[in-house]
Structure formats: structure tokens, C-alpha cells
């Protein structure tokens, strides 16, 4: 399970970094506050993951000093596209924790998968992207 936890940690770290870039390019105050709220949520999950990995006395690979974005972000459109991409990636990382967890821990992982999937849907709506949903959130496409 520590391998999957480490992957989830990496995804959350990447999301925190990406939301910093996304926030710069968003324009509406509603969009900016949504991005800020998302970043805080990803920070909280990152902290919880660090604690959990620590609890298991496992060591996660240290976070890379710099992240490479999957594509260049220069405007609002790119920022919204990155937000969808990031949430889809986080959803994938939590989904693989489902088979290696049980009970409440699995429910927590599912809750994070679901949150990211719902957030991706909101970003798609703001970006005017359709369809708003995918059939299997978290399944690599």
C-alpha cells in the first residue's frame, strides 16, 4: 500500500504546484477562489498522506524540486485545461488505493477520488468543455 500512498502523495504535490500556476491565469474572482479552495484541499490531503506514510514507517520519495507541466499554460483557457488534467490525475492516484485498503480507509480514498472527479466536472463546465463527465473517473484513459 505504501507504493500507492506515495503515488497519491506525488499526485497531490503536483496538484498543489499546478494550482499555483492556474491561479495566476484565472480572471473571474469566483474562478480564483475556486482554485484557491482546491489548492487548500490538496494541501490538506498532502499533509494527511505524509502523516499516514510516516505512520507506516515507510519513506516516500522526496518531492521533486521542480515540476514539469504537461503543457504550457499562458492564458485562462490553458489554466482551466490544466485544472481538469490535474484533477483527473489525482482521481487516478486515489482510485488505485481502493483495492489495497479496506473499511474507512477505502471510504476515504473513494471520497478523494469522488471530490477530484466532481471538481474536474466543475472546471469543465467553467471552461465550456463537453461532455462534463467521464464514465469511469480515475480509470486511465
Amino acid at each position, binding site marked *: 500500500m505504501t507504493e500507492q500512498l506515495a503515488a497519491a502523495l506525488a499526485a497531490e504535490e503536483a496538484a498543489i504546484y499546478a494550482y499555483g500556476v492556474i491561479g495566476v491565469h484565472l480572471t473571474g474572482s469566483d474562478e480564483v477562489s475556486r482554485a484557491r479552495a482546491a489548492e487548500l484541499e490538496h494541501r490538506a490531503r498532502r499533509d494527511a498522506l505524509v502523516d499516514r506514510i510516516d505512520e507506516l514507517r515507510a519513506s516516500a520519495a522526496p518531492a521533486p524540486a521542480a515540476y514539469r507541466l504537461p503543457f504550457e499554460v499562458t492564458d485562462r483557457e490553458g489554466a482551466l485545461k490544466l485544472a481538469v488534467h490535474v484533477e483527473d490525475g489525482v482521481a487516478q492516484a486515489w482510485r488505485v488505493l*481502493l*483495492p489495497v485498503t479496506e473499511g474507512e480507509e*477505502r*471510504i476515504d480514498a473513494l471520497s478523494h477520488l469522488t471530490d477530484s472527479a*466532481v471538481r474536474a466536472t466543475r472546471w469543465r463546465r467553467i471552461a465550456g468543455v463537453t461532455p462534463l*463527465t467521464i*464514465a*469511469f*473517473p*480515475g480509470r486511465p484513459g
Partner: protein
Amino acid sequence: MVLTGTVLTTSRRILLGALAGSAALAGCGVFDGDPEPAPPPDSFQPLLDEALALAASYDRVIAAQPALAARLTPLAEDHRAHAADLARVIGVTVASAAPSVPVSSAPAGTTATLRKAEQAAQKTAVAACKAAPAERAMLAGSIAACRATHAEALR
């Protein structure tokens, strides 16, 4: 009151005796020749029934309000994709897995009733994910998350 209590105690004793008797009979192998009871339904069957019922609900709303087709059709397609995967995991074909209650006669709902149905169905999928063996947890989990995104898309 005392009398009533005695009567109850006696009937309870009789009942216990009867139960013990049938247990003894079963132990003697009297029922061994009976055919195997039907296997219990697959724990994912309710998820499959719901996926098909939801897809049909969308179809009815779209038929009643064609202007919603562009918005609702992709959601109905998600449910059909769920049904296909669930049927494969359960080991049934979707046609034979159709819910026994004919849904086509039900009145068409609205996006609000669809949203409520999605929220209820999400709960079913969360419970199924929690109870699922490891190899089925990801399928139930993705279906639960998808149903949540549908509720969001219908806002």
C-alpha cells in the same frame, strides 16, 4: 398476568423443541437429496439494476424534453457503459440482466428527479465499493464517483 406469562413460556418451549427437531432431521441427511438452493444474487446486481434503470430514466426525460438531449445523452451513455462493465464482472448479459419491473411505463421525470436518483445511486455504489473484494473495488469506486459527477452536472 401470571397466567399469560406461563402460557408464553410454554409456547416458547414448544417452539424451541420444534426447532431442535428439524435441526436433528437435517443432520440425519433427510434433505440431502434436495437440489442445491439457487445461488444468492451477485452483490453487484443492485448496481447493475440501478445503472439500467438510470439510463432508462434519462431516455424518458429526453423523449419528453428533446431540448435536453445534448446535455443528458452523455450521462445516459455513462450508465450504459457502467452496465456493460458490471454485466461482464457479474457474468451475465445486459439483456438478461434488465430489471424485472418494466420501467418504460413510468412517467418521465425532470432533471431534479434525475439528480435525486443519482445521489441515491451514488450511496449504493459507495456501499458496494466498501464491501467489495479488492479486485472489484475500483469498478464500484469509479461508478460511485461518476454518479456524483452526474449530480453535479445536473445542478
